[in-house]
């Protein structure tokens, strides 16, 4: 994303870190569908579409390991950092900027709107 895009990003608070179990995920409902917000074992936070590029499985329901999640439907492994399928599978899911300020969690909604537009 260009510097200009980043500048006009609109960070929206969605809750606090403790709302998500360590090595787990929660969903955020948006007009464009669900976003899965992940918390890794080392408390990094990532947000991606809750929709596996394979058959649309809900990634938020998968097992989180390292910075990746295994889809509950057919075991595709998706990188939380890039949204890309790892291993032999090919495909990618949209990533959404997410950040942690203190304990507060934010995702960048502006990016959503631009995608929707």
């Amino acid at each position, binding site marked *: 994303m260009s510097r200009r895009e980043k500048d006009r990003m609109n960070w929206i608070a969605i809750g606090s870190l403790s709302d998500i179990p360590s*090595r787990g995920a929660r969903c*955020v409902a*948006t007009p464009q569908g669900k976003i899965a917000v992940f918390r890794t074992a080392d408390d990094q936070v990532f947000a991606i579409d809750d929709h596996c590029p394979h058959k649309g499985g809900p990634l938020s329901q998968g097992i989180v390991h390292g910075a990746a999640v295994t889809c*509950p439907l057919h075991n595709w492994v998706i990188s939380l950092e890039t949204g890309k399928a790892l291993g032999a599978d090919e495909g990618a899911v949209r990533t959404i900027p997410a950040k942690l300020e203190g304990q507060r969690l934010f995702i960048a909604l502006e990016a*959503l709107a631009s995608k929707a537009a």
Partner: protein
Amino acid sequence: MTEKLVIIGNGMAPGRMLEHLLEEAPDRYSVTIFNAEPRVNYDRIMLSPVLSGEKAFEEIVIHGDGWYIKHGITLYKGHRIVAINREAKTVTSDHGVTESYDRLVIATGSVPFIIPVPGKDLPGVLSYRDLDDVNAMLLAAQSRAKAVVIGGGLLGLEAAAGLKERGMDVTVLHVMPTLMERQLDPAAGYLLQKAVEARGIKVMTKANTKAIVGNGRVEGIELMDGTIIPATLVVMAVGIRPSTALAKEAGLEVNRGIVVDDRMRTSDPAIMALGECAEVGGHVYGLVAPLYEMARVAAAGLADSEERRFVHSDTPTKLKVTGIDLYSLGDFADGEDREEIILRDASAGIYKRVVLQDNRIIGTVLFGETGDGAWFNDLKKKATDISEMRDTLIFGQAFQGGVSSDPLAAVAALADDAEICGCNGVCKGKITGAITGKGLTSLDDVRAHTKASASCGSCTGLVEQLLRLTLGEAYNPAAVQPMCGCTSLGHDDVRRLIKAKGLKTIPAIMQELEWKTSCGCAKCRPALNYYLVCDWPNQYADDYQSRFINERVHANIQKDGTYSVVPRMWGGVTSANELRAIADVVDKFEIPMVKVTGGQRIDMLGIRKEDLPAVWADLGKAGFVSGHAYAKGLRTVKTCVGSDWCRFGTQDSTGLGIRIEKFMWGSWTPAKVKMAVSGCPRNCAEATCKDVGVVCVDSGYEIHFAGAAGLDIKGTEVLGLVKTEDEALEVIVALVQMYREQARYLERIYKWAKRIGTAEIKRQILDDGEKRKTYYERFVFSQKFAQVDPWSERVSGKDKHEFRPMASVGFAEAAE
């Protein structure tokens, strides 16, 4: 005509001798063995892993009963030879069997040295020599009480570590100032003491035993300085003595051991001796490598195949205590004409010392990192002049001659005659030659053909590297399939180590077993979680983040992300009330699909995740609990109507089915478990394709198991017939518990049974009442923590976060 060969003793040395002899002159002798121990030949070096729980006795057997039968060898188990008549050329056993011989081999081994102090004969004082000793120690360890091991040598420390693993409070007494002083210099002895103490074992050096005290049995030890150490078990491991009494009585020349020449011949030309009882060139031996060399020499002598002579050589010492790496070889006393190179790394717990004389290695002590042992040994053996590499010698082979630190390259750089397996005297060339010459592809192959790494196993890594080096990409070390990419260990090893090391959390497993990833993957985490739930039912807190979504939210995920819900219908029996409640739930939540399952219950499909707790709340009010249709656990017990209604029914199959289901629901298992009870052999409940099935007959209950009707189709095996419902329940519960404890995660009962053998399962569950009882009791214990209805828990608020979105955002903006 075949000659008669009689062997007294059935330890590792004569066993190895026979292997060589059968290769070189298979038909020359008819062989008879007298073994004072009532069992076959096993790997005595591996008794310590048996004691610590890392191996089972079956795994250390070298020659099973079949081997003796196959080679036409007569083995008298539990026969001690009491007399040799050299004139008549006969031997006689304590059971009165007399056998004549043309050639006799004495391999009576050694006896443990018992310190002559008062109380040495009290019950509770053991030595550490054979399987009987190990079994006695295991029995004593059940008390979890205090044990004292006298002797801080190799055997004593292994015994101490094993007893500690088994939960005892252990103190080691050693009369010298540092441990293993014959093999280690004081610095390494000190590091060893630290490492031993770090495992919670107390060590007292300069401790001189005055007496073993106790009234009727051991209560403690009194030292010379008056200290009293309480103990219920005392293990004496202060050394061994060649067992020579029999030879002496027969008039053979005996010194410390039975005197033999370098071809293993005693003073009687018809009699040979080998092993720990023999004395060659003034030496007696206790480590396996020279004993195996004796076996080779003796076999050559018996076969007249070649003139092989025994030559003395130093043997490296290794300690078999998991997690303590120790290697020592040769002479390392200080001396005027000697120099030494030392490397210490305190933070890593590493100490290395090489002793030189005239620029040649004469001794090596390695502690903490022993990978270069073979290389130092090779330099010493060949008396290589090391002046060229003196500056970097201590850093090991990787630093010499531009060879990279890649372990594979280090092995590649070894000369063909470099010794790889010290126990069996196998060099690199012999292994690589066998791999290419005989087309070997696995570690087991190499062990079978060359014996390399088949004894103490510490050179296994080197042998695997040779396989990789020789076969390249074709080498697939997955003779043991690793659990997943996060580890090289297989499921069985992991399960064993969880128990042996007392690992009680997933991070502890990953740390101790050196997981390659920081927090595992979707394959290993659910497996580890199950193993921990099964092994430590009252101590382990179930890690829901390591469970598959179905088990995390107690419903079955469907292709569109909705869920299905199946309430329990005990034994497939329902009522108007229950059906009405289901109908109401279906209406209220607009559930799109209702279906009867194969397991005699009702499935509601297409429920949104957010609705799950409310659906369960309504179902709960009608008395429904979770049917665990989503679980690697007990699913259904399908039944027919049995003697209550059916004109053919022989027993109350419905009642038994309900009883089993109520007893076993909620238990987690390696894979799903489906059961059925049929009231007569017409088998309407289809019990003969289930994981566990019961077919009722007039005389009782026929218990079946290991059926399959999915990817594979397989009829059940019959476990056996029992007379009463109570017995049927006990057998079924014990069987499932055995499966829970032994199977690999996701392995159904039929696959597990095929792997370990239905005969073994029958033996443990049906024939061995004690064993059955303990399995049963462990299941009952674990149920205390498992039988909680997960649905009502969640209705009352557990894991709320699972069922609600964290936030809703962006809707207002979108509307603008």
